[in-house]
């Protein structure tokens, strides 16, 4: 039975995710600029970009199929759904039982399949180049992500993200060594999945080196705006998964309205720190040769498996 407060919390959460996501991206970019001794465009720049793109006419390539048109919407819907499942402020989420952590990985995979198909739909060399690189990164990142989620699930005996957070945030504080390994693995996967350095370079103009950007080269106007917003949302959701799995303290339990109030500043603070950490990693790293990505993600997978083993050895 869905309670009114739950419904309100759920809707607030999705809305908040959509609103905050561009700011998080802006914050990461701003930190990157600062770390490179530049003044930076300000954290609201992604909003300006989105407004510009929404005002522009969407140009479609000749021979674009309905799949190409539909993909930005599918992508955006997928990311909204993901945002609805992940406990961002509170754990009392009516949508939460609809999908667990495994389904969440499936949602990301669905989005990936659509964007890759759309990239190949036009038939340009860059689109298929980007799509096949994306699939390579994807099939290596997904197992590592699943393993990380399993480690957290084993601790709380549930694959539901809400239960995982409840178990850790509202129970007695315990240090889990396995989560340290899982945390590193998760960070590596997030960098790869969100097309960040060292796997992909979101700021490059070099067509031949692109992964994510190569896939969206043919998009413009509102379609591109939706894709950009979905990318920002994906980064936001990944950050929130990270927070939920590893730093859930401050996320409110069901029906705790004071807790919900306090959860927002806690979230903003955690995102600010996380965003800065990501910018720092990106500034210090060079982009890898593309065939180093399997090594990178293989390491992430290995660390995630280690985390599970450590859980069985030390914590079970």
């Amino acid at each position: 039975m869905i309670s009114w407060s739950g419904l309100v919390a759920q809707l607030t959460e999705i809305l908040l995710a959509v609103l905050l996501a561009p700011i998080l991206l802006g914050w990461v970019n701003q930190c990157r600029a600062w770390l490179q001794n530049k003044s930076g465009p300000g954290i609201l720049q992604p909003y300006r970009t989105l407004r510009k793109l929404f005002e522009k006419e969407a140009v479609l390539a000749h021979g674009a199929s309905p799949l190409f048109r539909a993909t930005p919407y599918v992508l955006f819907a997928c990311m909204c759904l993901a945002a609805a499942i992940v406990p961002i402020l509170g754990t009392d989420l009516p949508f939460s039982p609809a999908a667990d952590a495994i389904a969440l990985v499936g949602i990301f995979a669905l989005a990936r399949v659509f964007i890759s198909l759309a990239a190949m739909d036009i038939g340009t060399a860059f689109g298929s180049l980007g799509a096949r690189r994306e699939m390579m990164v994807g099939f290596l990142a997904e197992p590592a992500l699943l393993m990380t989620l399993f480690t957290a699930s084993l601790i709380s005996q549930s694959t539901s993200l809400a239960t995982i957070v409840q178990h850790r945030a509202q129970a007695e504080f315990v240090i889990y060594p396995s989560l340290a390994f899982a945390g590193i693995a998760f960070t590596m996967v997030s960098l790869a999945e969100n097309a960040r350095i060292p796997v992909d370079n979101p700021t490059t103009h070099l067509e031949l080196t692109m992964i994510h950007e190569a896939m969206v080269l043919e998009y413009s106007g509102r379609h591109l705006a939706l894709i950009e917003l979905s990318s920002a949302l994906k980064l936001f959701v990944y950050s929130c998964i990270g927070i939920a799995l590893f730093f859930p303290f401050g996320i409110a339990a069901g029906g705790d309205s004071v807790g919900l109030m306090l959860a927002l500043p806690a979230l903003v603070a955690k995102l600010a720190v996380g965003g800065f950490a990501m910018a720092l990693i990106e500034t210090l790293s060079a982009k890898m040769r593309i065939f180093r990505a399997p090594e990178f993600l293989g390491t992430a997978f290995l660390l995630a498996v280690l985390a599970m083993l450590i859980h069985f050895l030390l914590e079970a």
Partner: protein
Amino acid sequence: MAFDSLPVELSELPGAVPAWQAQAGTADLQNICQAVKNQGGRLIALWGTDEQDRGEGYTLHLSLAKAEGLLWLRCALPVDQPKYPDLSPIFYNAHRMQRAARDLLGIDADAADRRPWLRHAAWRDSDRPLHRAHAAGKTFEAQDSEYAFVSVTGDGVHEIPVGPVHAGTIEPGHFRFSIVGEKVLRLEDRLGYTHKGIDKRFQGMPLADGAKLAGRVSGDSTVAYAWAYCMALESVAGITPPGRALMLRALMLERERIANHLGDLGYLGNDGGLGFGLAQFMRLKEDVLRLNAKLFGHRYLMDCIVPGGVACDLGQAGFEAINIECDTLMHDVRLLKDIYDDHAGLQDRFLTCGRLTPNTAGKLGVIGLAGRASGQAWDLRAQARPAPYDLLDARMKTHKNGDVAARVNLRFEEIFESLRLLHVLVERIAPGDIAAPLPATMSAGIGLGWAEGWRGESVVALESGADGRIRSCHAHDPSWQNWPALAFAVNGNIVPDFPLINKSFNLSYSGCDL
């Protein structure tokens, strides 16, 4: 004499560089080229001119170089059958220049490759834009041209066309990759998109004005081109610029080298994904450019070198500013070199990437920076040493690995060497005039200019008419030699490494599209 064993009659050209000129018949061409090659020489430039207004046919021009000097070989071709033997089996780099000469003038090397090079769609196969009969601004009937790229076939092989319009603000060029998976099997480049008709534009220009046009052949090498042009003009006029002017020219050339190397190092870091490097190096480059603007009145030093000398003098304060900036640069670039050297991720991108072996580089006749990174020891400043380099003891740097890392390291070393040279120049510069006057009337004559720009050797071959105007002038960019080498360096690498390899060469489009 450097070329005295050749079967031609040589006459020495006056001027700053050791240069000779000779007439040869088409029958001797291959023998002469082979002899120069056997002596360790190379082909610098090949171009043609139309002499029908003098009642002759065409002239094929070659400039051949050895460490000791330059030979300008001219070969008359009959108007009805302007053919000469194919020189590309001897000098690989003759290939594209022969095709370009054929597009512009119809002189034909009888080579197997009949494809156009400079001609895209702006004129027809039968048109000869460089004929003297055509006015400079004449446009021709456009014609669509299909260009037959060499196709690679096999299981899973496909093509990626890139350009001429790119995602970044760079010059236009088309690259056709034949790849399997991510691996490059073959790269074929198609240039000529920035053809502007410079050779035609030179014709009939007042001699003194040519320096401005030469300085705009390739903007990032404006000092090298302007100097080469002025050197050629001074050779024709029989004047020698004052010592102070020559020192100032060298100062500008080294500053141009530093600015370009700094920019390239930044972009190489950026293409490796290290945006920090770009931000830092661009800051340093900007400082150099701003000081240029303050001291010489132009950020890139355009029009600062004029026939007879230089356009502006520096006071004591200017020299001190240069000295101070050199010290700061030396300190900062050292720090950044340590960061680049110690960055495992960046070195992983640079090392072994885009390897051009010394053997291949030698066969292709690669010159300049890219050549020196692959063991080709050519540096005019250390070899033929045109004044004032005869007083400076510039040290040539070479590497043997020929990969991106070698080209990066060479840039660092050349910056340090140029900074050292700047100190020496500032120390040794003597008071005096900054320009020698040009004679009021100049007779017809020919002259060669040769300058080691940051990318490699720029050569300007000038022929003046009796009216004090340019009869013909050809500017040669080192990129002619090095573009084919890029395709060899890329082979076997993966597609996403191409931009990095391309940047490590950083060749000019404008300079060889002319």
